[in-house]
Protein backbone atom coordinates (compact mmCIF):
# COMPACT_ATOMS: atom_id res chain seq x y z
CA UNK A 1 0.00 0.00 0.00
CA UNK A 2 1.28 3.41 -0.89
CA UNK A 3 2.33 5.68 1.94
CA UNK A 4 -0.08 8.51 2.52
CA UNK A 5 1.23 11.53 4.40
CA UNK A 6 -1.27 12.76 6.93
CA UNK A 7 -1.69 16.49 6.90
CA UNK A 8 -2.73 18.69 9.80
CA UNK A 9 -5.25 21.15 8.41
CA UNK A 10 -6.22 24.21 10.40
CA UNK A 11 -9.39 26.21 9.95
CA UNK A 12 -7.75 29.56 10.67
CA UNK A 13 -4.88 31.53 9.21
CA UNK A 14 -2.67 34.43 10.25
CA UNK A 15 -3.50 37.77 8.62
CA UNK A 16 -1.18 39.01 5.94
CA UNK A 17 0.16 42.44 6.79
CA UNK A 18 2.33 44.72 4.66
CA UNK A 19 4.97 47.02 6.02
CA UNK A 20 6.77 49.74 4.12
CA UNK A 21 6.27 50.80 0.51
CA UNK A 22 7.91 50.25 -2.84
CA UNK A 23 10.32 47.53 -3.84
CA UNK A 24 11.52 46.74 -0.32
CA UNK A 25 8.15 46.46 1.39
CA UNK A 26 7.66 43.25 3.33
CA UNK A 27 4.77 41.02 4.33
CA UNK A 28 4.28 39.50 7.75
CA UNK A 29 2.10 36.47 8.46
CA UNK A 30 -0.18 34.81 5.93
CA UNK A 31 0.47 31.27 7.15
CA UNK A 32 -2.10 28.57 7.94
CA UNK A 33 0.27 26.12 9.65
CA UNK A 34 2.55 26.18 12.66
CA UNK A 35 6.11 27.45 12.03
CA UNK A 36 8.13 25.58 9.39
CA UNK A 37 5.45 22.93 8.83
CA UNK A 38 5.55 23.48 5.09
CA UNK A 39 4.41 19.87 4.56
CA UNK A 40 1.07 20.79 6.19
CA UNK A 41 0.26 23.93 4.23
CA UNK A 42 1.25 27.51 3.53
CA UNK A 43 4.01 28.87 5.79
CA UNK A 44 3.24 32.44 4.68
CA UNK A 45 5.94 35.07 4.48
CA UNK A 46 8.30 33.40 6.94
CA UNK A 47 10.03 35.17 9.81
CA UNK A 48 11.42 38.62 9.08
CA UNK A 49 14.56 40.06 10.62
CA UNK A 50 15.05 43.67 11.68
CA UNK A 51 18.16 45.47 12.95
CA UNK A 52 17.96 47.97 15.76
CA UNK A 53 19.33 51.51 15.56
CA UNK A 54 18.90 54.39 18.01
CA UNK A 55 18.06 58.08 17.76
CA UNK A 56 21.09 58.85 19.94
CA UNK A 57 24.67 57.62 20.05
CA UNK A 58 24.64 54.08 21.55
CA UNK A 59 26.83 54.76 24.56
CA UNK A 60 25.63 51.62 26.35
CA UNK A 61 26.31 49.25 23.49
CA UNK A 62 29.38 47.03 23.39
CA UNK A 63 32.51 48.63 21.96
CA UNK A 64 32.66 46.11 19.16
CA UNK A 65 29.32 47.38 17.83
CA UNK A 66 30.28 51.02 18.26
CA UNK A 67 33.45 50.36 16.28
CA UNK A 68 31.50 48.48 13.66
CA UNK A 69 29.15 51.41 13.02
CA UNK A 70 31.80 54.10 13.66
CA UNK A 71 30.77 57.70 13.17
CA UNK A 72 27.55 56.67 11.39
CA UNK A 73 26.08 55.95 14.81
CA UNK A 74 26.14 59.67 15.55
CA UNK A 75 23.42 60.28 12.99
CA UNK A 76 20.43 57.98 12.75
CA UNK A 77 19.82 58.62 9.05
CA UNK A 78 23.41 57.83 8.15
CA UNK A 79 23.33 54.83 10.45
CA UNK A 80 20.16 53.54 8.80
CA UNK A 81 21.71 53.94 5.36
CA UNK A 82 24.79 52.01 6.44
CA UNK A 83 22.66 49.19 7.89
CA UNK A 84 20.60 49.00 4.71
CA UNK A 85 23.61 48.93 2.38
CA UNK A 86 25.89 46.69 4.36
CA UNK A 87 23.63 44.27 6.21
CA UNK A 88 20.33 44.37 4.28
CA UNK A 89 17.94 43.30 7.00
CA UNK A 90 14.21 42.94 6.17
CA UNK A 91 13.45 46.09 8.13
CA UNK A 92 15.06 48.67 10.40
CA UNK A 93 13.87 49.37 13.92
CA UNK A 94 14.47 52.98 14.92
CA UNK A 95 14.29 53.12 18.68
CA UNK A 96 13.56 56.57 20.07
CA UNK A 97 15.25 56.10 23.42
CA UNK A 98 16.27 59.76 23.49
CA UNK A 99 12.64 60.71 24.07
CA UNK A 100 12.51 58.92 27.40
CA UNK A 101 11.45 61.36 30.15
CA UNK A 102 13.84 59.56 32.49
CA UNK A 103 16.69 60.15 30.05
CA UNK A 104 17.33 62.95 27.58
CA UNK A 105 13.61 63.69 27.33
CA UNK A 106 13.87 64.94 23.75
CA UNK A 107 10.78 66.67 22.41
CA UNK A 108 8.37 64.80 20.18
CA UNK A 109 9.05 67.35 17.42
CA UNK A 110 12.77 66.64 17.53
CA UNK A 111 12.13 62.89 17.39
CA UNK A 112 9.65 63.28 14.55
CA UNK A 113 12.14 65.32 12.53
CA UNK A 114 14.74 62.61 13.00
CA UNK A 115 12.27 59.88 12.07
CA UNK A 116 11.46 61.54 8.76
CA UNK A 117 15.17 61.93 7.98
CA UNK A 118 15.66 58.21 8.55
CA UNK A 119 12.62 57.35 6.47
CA UNK A 120 13.96 59.43 3.58
CA UNK A 121 17.43 57.88 3.86
CA UNK A 122 16.38 54.27 3.31
CA UNK A 123 14.00 52.14 1.27
CA UNK A 124 13.57 49.49 3.95
CA UNK A 125 10.37 49.38 6.01
CA UNK A 126 10.64 51.00 9.42
CA UNK A 127 9.53 49.93 12.85
CA UNK A 128 9.46 52.89 15.23
CA UNK A 129 9.95 51.86 18.84
CA UNK A 130 9.00 54.20 21.65
CA UNK A 131 10.22 54.80 25.16
CA UNK A 132 7.91 52.42 27.02
CA UNK A 133 6.68 55.42 28.97
CA UNK A 134 2.97 55.26 28.22
CA UNK A 135 2.26 58.99 28.38
CA UNK A 136 5.27 60.02 26.36
CA UNK A 137 4.71 57.29 23.78
CA UNK A 138 1.17 58.46 23.24
CA UNK A 139 2.35 61.96 22.19
CA UNK A 140 5.43 60.63 20.47
CA UNK A 141 3.59 58.16 18.23
CA UNK A 142 0.89 60.68 17.43
CA UNK A 143 3.50 63.09 16.06
CA UNK A 144 5.72 60.51 14.41
CA UNK A 145 2.72 58.93 12.70
CA UNK A 146 1.77 62.32 11.29
CA UNK A 147 5.17 63.17 9.80
CA UNK A 148 5.71 59.65 8.45
CA UNK A 149 2.37 59.52 6.65
CA UNK A 150 2.78 57.46 3.49
CA UNK A 151 5.71 55.38 4.77
CA UNK A 152 3.51 52.63 6.24
CA UNK A 153 5.60 52.06 9.37
CA UNK A 154 4.91 49.93 12.44
CA UNK A 155 4.43 51.80 15.71
CA UNK A 156 5.88 49.68 18.53
CA UNK A 157 3.86 49.69 20.65
CA UNK A 158 0.42 50.54 22.01
CA UNK A 159 -0.58 49.21 25.42
CA UNK A 160 -3.92 49.16 27.22
CA UNK A 161 -3.18 52.61 28.73
CA UNK A 162 -2.64 54.42 25.43
CA UNK A 163 -3.97 52.27 22.59
CA UNK A 164 -6.88 54.57 21.77
CA UNK A 165 -4.76 57.52 20.67
CA UNK A 166 -1.96 55.46 19.13
CA UNK A 167 -4.29 53.22 17.12
CA UNK A 168 -6.55 56.11 16.09
CA UNK A 169 -3.69 58.42 15.07
CA UNK A 170 -1.42 55.73 13.76
CA UNK A 171 -3.80 53.59 11.77
CA UNK A 172 -7.02 55.48 11.22
CA UNK A 173 -5.56 58.93 10.52
CA UNK A 174 -2.15 58.17 9.00
CA UNK A 175 -2.51 54.60 7.69
CA UNK A 176 0.36 53.01 9.56
CA UNK A 177 0.38 49.69 11.43
CA UNK A 178 0.18 49.40 15.17
CA UNK A 179 1.75 46.85 17.48
CA UNK A 180 -0.45 45.79 20.40
CA UNK A 181 1.71 45.08 23.42
CA UNK A 182 0.67 42.84 26.28
CA UNK A 183 2.67 41.20 29.01
CA UNK A 184 3.06 37.48 28.29
CA UNK A 185 -0.59 36.55 28.83
CA UNK A 186 -2.77 35.11 26.09
CA UNK A 187 -6.01 36.48 27.56
CA UNK A 188 -4.59 40.00 27.82
CA UNK A 189 -3.24 39.80 24.27
CA UNK A 190 -6.68 38.81 23.05
CA UNK A 191 -8.40 41.53 25.05
CA UNK A 192 -6.17 44.31 23.68
CA UNK A 193 -6.76 43.10 20.13
CA UNK A 194 -10.51 43.16 20.71
CA UNK A 195 -10.30 46.70 22.10
CA UNK A 196 -8.30 47.90 19.11
CA UNK A 197 -10.68 46.11 16.73
CA UNK A 198 -13.54 47.94 18.44
CA UNK A 199 -11.96 51.22 17.28
CA UNK A 200 -12.71 49.99 13.74
CA UNK A 201 -9.04 49.13 13.24
CA UNK A 202 -8.88 45.98 11.17
CA UNK A 203 -6.75 43.00 12.17
CA UNK A 204 -4.73 43.45 8.95
CA UNK A 205 -3.30 46.62 10.49
CA UNK A 206 -2.32 45.12 13.83
CA UNK A 207 0.81 43.25 14.87
CA UNK A 208 1.02 41.63 18.29
CA UNK A 209 3.90 42.20 20.66
CA UNK A 210 2.95 39.64 23.27
CA UNK A 211 5.91 40.31 25.53
CA UNK A 212 9.47 39.15 25.38
CA UNK A 213 12.28 37.92 27.60
CA UNK A 214 15.81 36.67 27.13
CA UNK A 215 16.37 32.93 27.29
CA UNK A 216 16.74 31.88 30.90
CA UNK A 217 14.63 34.78 32.16
CA UNK A 218 11.10 33.41 32.16
CA UNK A 219 11.46 32.71 28.48
CA UNK A 220 9.31 29.55 28.70
CA UNK A 221 6.31 31.78 29.38
CA UNK A 222 7.01 33.84 26.29
CA UNK A 223 7.49 30.78 24.08
CA UNK A 224 4.39 29.00 25.38
CA UNK A 225 2.28 32.16 25.10
CA UNK A 226 3.29 32.60 21.46
CA UNK A 227 2.68 28.90 20.85
CA UNK A 228 -0.79 28.98 22.41
CA UNK A 229 -1.72 32.14 20.53
CA UNK A 230 -0.80 30.47 17.25
CA UNK A 231 -2.76 27.32 18.08
CA UNK A 232 -5.82 29.39 19.00
CA UNK A 233 -5.50 31.44 15.81
CA UNK A 234 -5.13 28.39 13.60
CA UNK A 235 -6.95 25.60 15.43
CA UNK A 236 -9.85 27.51 16.95
CA UNK A 237 -9.90 30.04 14.14
CA UNK A 238 -9.89 32.75 16.79
CA UNK A 239 -10.12 35.92 14.68
CA UNK A 240 -8.96 38.07 17.58
CA UNK A 241 -5.56 36.36 17.69
CA UNK A 242 -4.74 36.08 13.98
CA UNK A 243 -2.38 39.04 13.82
CA UNK A 244 1.33 38.47 13.08
CA UNK A 245 3.68 38.58 16.08
CA UNK A 246 6.82 40.72 16.44
CA UNK A 247 9.38 40.11 19.19
CA UNK A 248 11.96 42.80 20.02
CA UNK A 249 14.57 40.27 21.10
CA UNK A 250 17.50 42.67 21.47
CA UNK A 251 15.62 44.94 23.88
CA UNK A 252 16.01 42.21 26.50
CA UNK A 253 18.99 40.10 25.62
CA UNK A 254 21.62 42.85 25.93
CA UNK A 255 20.31 43.93 29.33
CA UNK A 256 20.54 40.60 31.16
CA UNK A 257 23.86 39.79 32.80
CA UNK A 258 25.03 37.38 30.08
CA UNK A 259 24.79 40.22 27.55
CA UNK A 260 25.64 43.17 29.81
CA UNK A 261 28.44 42.01 32.04
CA UNK A 262 31.85 43.15 30.78
CA UNK A 263 34.82 40.88 30.34
CA UNK A 264 36.56 42.73 33.18
CA UNK A 265 33.71 41.87 35.57
CA UNK A 266 33.29 38.26 34.47
CA UNK A 267 36.47 37.14 32.71
CA UNK A 268 35.47 33.47 33.10
CA UNK A 269 32.50 34.05 30.76
CA UNK A 270 34.61 35.15 27.84
CA UNK A 271 34.02 37.88 25.29
CA UNK A 272 30.96 40.07 25.96
CA UNK A 273 29.99 40.55 22.33
CA UNK A 274 30.04 36.81 21.68
CA UNK A 275 27.83 36.27 24.71
CA UNK A 276 25.41 38.96 23.61
CA UNK A 277 25.18 37.46 20.13
CA UNK A 278 24.65 33.99 21.56
CA UNK A 279 21.83 35.25 23.79
CA UNK A 280 20.26 37.08 20.89
CA UNK A 281 20.42 34.08 18.56
CA UNK A 282 19.10 31.60 21.13
CA UNK A 283 16.19 33.85 22.03
CA UNK A 284 15.33 34.66 18.43
CA UNK A 285 15.40 31.03 17.35
CA UNK A 286 13.11 30.16 20.27
CA UNK A 287 10.46 32.76 19.48
CA UNK A 288 10.59 32.06 15.75
CA UNK A 289 10.11 28.34 16.37
CA UNK A 290 7.16 29.17 18.63
CA UNK A 291 5.53 31.38 16.01
CA UNK A 292 6.97 34.88 15.99
CA UNK A 293 6.74 36.47 12.53
CA UNK A 294 9.45 39.08 13.07
CA UNK A 295 12.38 39.60 15.41
CA UNK A 296 14.41 42.71 16.18
CA UNK A 297 18.12 42.08 16.68
CA UNK A 298 21.08 44.30 17.50
CA UNK A 299 24.18 42.64 16.12
CA UNK A 300 24.45 42.18 12.33
CA UNK A 301 26.11 38.82 12.96
CA UNK A 302 23.03 37.63 14.87
CA UNK A 303 20.89 38.68 11.92
CA UNK A 304 23.16 36.83 9.51
CA UNK A 305 23.01 33.66 11.62
CA UNK A 306 19.22 33.76 11.94
CA UNK A 307 18.89 34.31 8.21
CA UNK A 308 21.09 31.29 7.52
CA UNK A 309 19.05 29.27 10.02
CA UNK A 310 15.79 30.21 8.32
CA UNK A 311 17.26 29.46 4.92
CA UNK A 312 18.26 25.98 5.99
CA UNK A 313 14.87 25.17 7.50
CA UNK A 314 12.55 26.47 4.82
Amino acid at each position, binding site marked *: MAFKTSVQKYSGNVCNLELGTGEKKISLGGQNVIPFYSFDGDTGSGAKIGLEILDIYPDNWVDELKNLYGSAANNAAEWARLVEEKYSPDFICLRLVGADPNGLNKSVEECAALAIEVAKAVKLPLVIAGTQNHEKDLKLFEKVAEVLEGYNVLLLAAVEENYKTIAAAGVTAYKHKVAAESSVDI*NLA*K*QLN*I*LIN*QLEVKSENIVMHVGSAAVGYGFEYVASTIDRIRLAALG*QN*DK*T*LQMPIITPVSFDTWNVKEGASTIEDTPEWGDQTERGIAMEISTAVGVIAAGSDAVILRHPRSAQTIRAFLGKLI
Partner: protein
Amino acid sequence: MERFLVIGERIHCISPVIRQAIADRNSAPILQRAKEQLDAGAVYLDLNIGPAERDGEEVMAWAVRLLQENFDNVPLCLDTANKKAIESGIKVYNRSKGKPIINSADAGPRLGLLEVAAANDAMAIALCAKEGIPTGVEERIMYCTEMLEKAMTLGIDPMDLLFDPLFLVIKGMQDKAQEVLETIRQITEMGLRSNAGLSNVSNGAPKHVRPIIDATYCAMAMQCGLTAAIVNPCDPRLMETIKTCDMIKGNMLYADSYLEL
Protein backbone atom coordinates in the same frame (compact mmCIF):
# COMPACT_ATOMS: atom_id res chain seq x y z
CA MET B 1 -12.62 21.84 20.42
CA GLU B 2 -14.63 23.69 17.86
CA ARG B 3 -16.98 26.45 18.93
CA PHE B 4 -20.66 25.70 19.26
CA LEU B 5 -22.47 26.06 15.93
CA VAL B 6 -25.35 28.53 16.11
CA ILE B 7 -27.91 28.07 13.34
CA GLY B 8 -30.44 30.92 13.13
CA GLU B 9 -34.04 29.71 12.91
CA ARG B 10 -35.89 32.88 12.02
CA ILE B 11 -36.32 32.42 8.28
CA HIS B 12 -39.15 29.98 8.68
CA CYS B 13 -42.32 29.76 6.66
CA ILE B 14 -44.35 29.25 9.82
CA SER B 15 -43.92 33.00 10.29
CA PRO B 16 -46.65 34.82 8.35
CA VAL B 17 -44.21 37.56 7.34
CA ILE B 18 -41.77 35.08 5.82
CA ARG B 19 -44.50 32.96 4.25
CA GLN B 20 -45.88 36.03 2.51
CA ALA B 21 -42.42 37.21 1.49
CA ILE B 22 -41.69 33.81 -0.09
CA ALA B 23 -45.04 33.80 -1.88
CA ASP B 24 -44.43 37.29 -3.30
CA ARG B 25 -40.67 36.73 -3.85
CA ASN B 26 -40.28 39.83 -1.72
CA SER B 27 -36.68 39.91 -0.55
CA ALA B 28 -36.79 42.71 2.02
CA PRO B 29 -38.30 40.86 5.04
CA ILE B 30 -36.06 37.84 4.44
CA LEU B 31 -32.92 39.95 4.17
CA GLN B 32 -33.85 41.87 7.28
CA ARG B 33 -34.22 38.70 9.35
CA ALA B 34 -31.01 37.33 7.96
CA LYS B 35 -29.14 40.48 8.94
CA GLU B 36 -30.59 40.54 12.44
CA GLN B 37 -29.55 36.97 13.02
CA LEU B 38 -26.04 37.35 11.62
CA ASP B 39 -25.49 40.53 13.63
CA ALA B 40 -26.59 38.62 16.71
CA GLY B 41 -23.99 35.92 16.12
CA ALA B 42 -25.58 33.20 13.98
CA VAL B 43 -23.06 31.28 11.86
CA TYR B 44 -25.46 29.30 9.68
CA LEU B 45 -28.97 30.38 8.74
CA ASP B 46 -31.81 27.90 8.51
CA LEU B 47 -33.91 28.43 5.44
CA ASN B 48 -37.28 26.77 5.98
CA ILE B 49 -39.60 26.96 3.00
CA GLY B 50 -42.10 24.43 4.36
CA PRO B 51 -43.34 21.45 2.32
CA ALA B 52 -43.33 23.67 -0.82
CA GLU B 53 -44.77 20.96 -2.98
CA ARG B 54 -45.77 23.22 -5.80
CA ASP B 55 -42.84 25.56 -6.45
CA GLY B 56 -40.19 24.35 -3.96
CA GLU B 57 -37.36 24.04 -6.47
CA GLU B 58 -37.73 27.56 -7.70
CA VAL B 59 -38.25 29.02 -4.20
CA MET B 60 -35.22 27.30 -2.71
CA ALA B 61 -32.86 28.34 -5.52
CA TRP B 62 -34.17 31.90 -5.33
CA ALA B 63 -33.77 32.13 -1.55
CA VAL B 64 -30.30 30.51 -1.50
CA ARG B 65 -29.06 32.97 -4.10
CA LEU B 66 -30.71 35.88 -2.35
CA LEU B 67 -29.10 35.15 1.02
CA GLN B 68 -25.68 34.20 -0.25
CA GLU B 69 -25.41 37.15 -2.61
CA ASN B 70 -26.34 39.61 0.10
CA PHE B 71 -24.38 38.12 2.99
CA ASP B 72 -21.00 37.04 1.65
CA ASN B 73 -21.98 33.45 0.87
CA VAL B 74 -23.42 32.84 4.32
CA PRO B 75 -23.64 29.07 4.91
CA LEU B 76 -27.18 27.72 4.98
CA CYS B 77 -29.31 24.93 6.33
CA LEU B 78 -31.78 23.90 3.63
CA ASP B 79 -34.94 23.00 5.48
CA THR B 80 -37.79 21.30 3.65
CA ALA B 81 -39.22 17.84 3.17
CA ASN B 82 -39.13 18.43 -0.58
CA LYS B 83 -36.11 16.53 -1.87
CA LYS B 84 -36.12 18.19 -5.28
CA ALA B 85 -36.16 21.61 -3.63
CA ILE B 86 -33.08 20.71 -1.60
CA GLU B 87 -31.28 19.53 -4.72
CA SER B 88 -32.13 22.69 -6.55
CA GLY B 89 -30.90 24.78 -3.59
CA ILE B 90 -27.59 22.91 -3.47
CA LYS B 91 -27.16 23.41 -7.21
CA VAL B 92 -26.84 27.17 -6.78
CA TYR B 93 -25.18 27.03 -3.35
CA ASN B 94 -21.70 28.56 -2.86
CA ARG B 95 -19.79 26.48 -0.32
CA SER B 96 -16.85 28.83 0.29
CA LYS B 97 -18.04 29.54 3.85
CA GLY B 98 -19.25 26.02 4.65
CA LYS B 99 -21.07 23.03 3.20
CA PRO B 100 -24.84 23.17 2.93
CA ILE B 101 -26.68 21.34 5.71
CA ILE B 102 -29.76 19.33 4.81
CA ASN B 103 -32.44 19.68 7.47
CA SER B 104 -33.34 16.96 8.01
CA ALA B 105 -33.03 13.25 7.40
CA ASP B 106 -34.43 10.65 9.79
CA ALA B 107 -34.39 6.88 10.19
CA GLY B 108 -37.83 6.57 8.63
CA PRO B 109 -39.46 8.12 5.60
CA ARG B 110 -36.73 10.75 5.21
CA LEU B 111 -33.79 8.36 5.22
CA GLY B 112 -33.44 9.05 1.50
CA LEU B 113 -32.18 12.54 2.22
CA LEU B 114 -28.89 10.96 3.27
CA GLU B 115 -28.49 9.92 -0.35
CA VAL B 116 -29.00 13.51 -1.39
CA ALA B 117 -26.32 14.53 1.12
CA ALA B 118 -23.93 11.88 -0.19
CA ALA B 119 -24.52 12.74 -3.83
CA ASN B 120 -23.94 16.46 -3.19
CA ASP B 121 -21.20 16.41 -0.53
CA ALA B 122 -23.57 18.10 1.90
CA MET B 123 -23.90 17.85 5.67
CA ALA B 124 -27.14 16.61 7.16
CA ILE B 125 -29.07 16.84 10.38
CA ALA B 126 -30.05 13.27 11.26
CA LEU B 127 -33.11 13.08 13.47
CA CYS B 128 -33.03 10.09 15.81
CA ALA B 129 -36.62 9.17 15.03
CA LYS B 130 -38.57 6.91 12.71
CA GLU B 131 -42.27 7.06 13.37
CA GLY B 132 -43.61 9.35 16.06
CA ILE B 133 -41.67 10.06 19.20
CA PRO B 134 -38.98 7.56 20.22
CA THR B 135 -39.69 5.88 23.53
CA GLY B 136 -36.33 6.23 25.22
CA VAL B 137 -32.58 6.59 24.97
CA GLU B 138 -32.08 3.13 23.50
CA GLU B 139 -34.49 3.68 20.66
CA ARG B 140 -32.85 7.00 19.82
CA ILE B 141 -29.39 5.46 19.79
CA MET B 142 -30.68 2.61 17.63
CA TYR B 143 -31.85 5.11 15.00
CA CYS B 144 -28.60 6.99 15.33
CA THR B 145 -26.58 3.86 14.53
CA GLU B 146 -28.93 2.89 11.70
CA MET B 147 -28.42 6.26 10.07
CA LEU B 148 -24.69 6.19 10.73
CA GLU B 149 -24.35 2.80 9.02
CA LYS B 150 -26.42 3.92 6.08
CA ALA B 151 -24.40 7.13 5.77
CA MET B 152 -21.10 5.30 5.89
CA THR B 153 -22.13 2.87 3.17
CA LEU B 154 -22.95 5.96 1.11
CA GLY B 155 -19.49 7.36 1.78
CA ILE B 156 -20.57 10.25 4.00
CA ASP B 157 -17.96 11.43 6.51
CA PRO B 158 -19.57 10.84 9.95
CA MET B 159 -18.42 14.34 10.93
CA ASP B 160 -20.79 15.71 8.29
CA LEU B 161 -23.76 14.43 10.26
CA LEU B 162 -25.40 16.30 13.13
CA PHE B 163 -27.42 13.78 15.12
CA ASP B 164 -30.50 15.33 16.64
CA PRO B 165 -31.95 13.38 19.57
CA LEU B 166 -35.31 15.10 19.01
CA PHE B 167 -35.72 17.75 21.66
CA LEU B 168 -39.20 17.68 23.17
CA VAL B 169 -41.39 20.25 24.80
CA ILE B 170 -40.96 20.42 28.57
CA LYS B 171 -44.53 21.49 29.20
CA GLY B 172 -46.26 18.18 28.60
CA MET B 173 -43.25 15.89 28.20
CA GLN B 174 -41.12 16.85 31.17
CA ASP B 175 -40.14 13.24 31.83
CA LYS B 176 -38.35 13.10 28.44
CA ALA B 177 -35.96 15.96 29.21
CA GLN B 178 -33.30 13.78 30.84
CA GLU B 179 -33.56 11.14 28.08
CA VAL B 180 -32.59 13.72 25.50
CA LEU B 181 -29.57 14.82 27.51
CA GLU B 182 -28.48 11.21 28.05
CA THR B 183 -28.80 10.57 24.31
CA ILE B 184 -26.51 13.52 23.56
CA ARG B 185 -23.99 12.17 26.04
CA GLN B 186 -23.96 8.79 24.30
CA ILE B 187 -23.76 10.35 20.81
CA THR B 188 -20.80 12.40 22.04
CA GLU B 189 -19.12 9.32 23.47
CA MET B 190 -19.30 7.73 20.04
CA GLY B 191 -17.28 10.72 18.78
CA LEU B 192 -20.17 12.11 16.77
CA ARG B 193 -21.61 15.60 16.47
CA SER B 194 -25.09 16.55 17.57
CA ASN B 195 -27.73 19.19 16.99
CA ALA B 196 -30.72 20.53 18.90
CA GLY B 197 -33.93 22.06 17.67
CA LEU B 198 -33.86 24.05 20.84
CA SER B 199 -36.90 26.28 20.71
CA ASN B 200 -39.23 23.29 20.90
CA VAL B 201 -38.39 22.77 24.54
CA SER B 202 -40.00 25.93 25.85
CA ASN B 203 -43.06 25.88 23.61
CA GLY B 204 -46.18 26.91 25.44
CA ALA B 205 -44.32 28.36 28.42
CA PRO B 206 -44.90 32.03 29.33
CA LYS B 207 -42.92 34.41 27.16
CA HIS B 208 -40.68 35.69 29.94
CA VAL B 209 -39.81 32.14 31.00
CA ARG B 210 -38.89 30.79 27.58
CA PRO B 211 -35.42 32.34 27.29
CA ILE B 212 -34.56 30.96 30.74
CA ILE B 213 -35.59 27.43 29.83
CA ASP B 214 -33.87 27.62 26.44
CA ALA B 215 -30.60 28.95 27.85
CA THR B 216 -30.44 26.55 30.78
CA TYR B 217 -31.34 23.50 28.74
CA CYS B 218 -28.77 24.51 26.12
CA ALA B 219 -26.06 24.86 28.78
CA MET B 220 -26.89 21.42 30.19
CA ALA B 221 -26.89 19.90 26.72
CA MET B 222 -23.56 21.55 25.88
CA GLN B 223 -22.04 19.97 28.95
CA CYS B 224 -23.29 16.62 27.60
CA GLY B 225 -21.45 17.40 24.36
CA LEU B 226 -24.03 19.11 22.13
CA THR B 227 -22.20 20.72 19.21
CA ALA B 228 -24.90 22.70 17.35
CA ALA B 229 -28.40 24.08 17.75
CA ILE B 230 -31.05 25.73 15.66
CA VAL B 231 -32.02 28.69 17.81
CA ASN B 232 -33.25 32.23 17.87
CA PRO B 233 -29.90 34.08 17.97
CA CYS B 234 -31.72 37.31 18.77
CA ASP B 235 -32.30 35.98 22.28
CA PRO B 236 -29.45 37.66 24.20
CA ARG B 237 -29.70 35.43 27.25
CA LEU B 238 -29.31 32.33 25.13
CA MET B 239 -26.40 33.74 23.14
CA GLU B 240 -24.58 34.87 26.28
CA THR B 241 -25.08 31.42 27.73
CA ILE B 242 -23.72 29.70 24.62
CA LYS B 243 -20.64 31.96 24.56
CA THR B 244 -20.02 31.42 28.25
CA CYS B 245 -20.37 27.65 27.90
CA ASP B 246 -17.97 27.74 24.95
CA MET B 247 -15.54 29.70 27.09
CA ILE B 248 -15.84 27.40 30.12
CA LYS B 249 -15.43 24.34 27.90
CA GLY B 250 -12.28 25.86 26.41
CA ASN B 251 -13.72 26.10 22.90
CA MET B 252 -12.96 29.80 22.97
CA LEU B 253 -10.21 31.70 24.77
CA TYR B 254 -11.25 34.02 27.53
CA ALA B 255 -10.87 37.79 27.21
CA ASP B 256 -12.74 40.40 29.27
CA SER B 257 -14.78 41.33 26.20
CA TYR B 258 -15.63 37.76 25.18
CA LEU B 259 -19.38 38.44 25.21
CA GLU B 260 -18.96 41.22 22.68
CA LEU B 261 -17.46 38.93 20.07
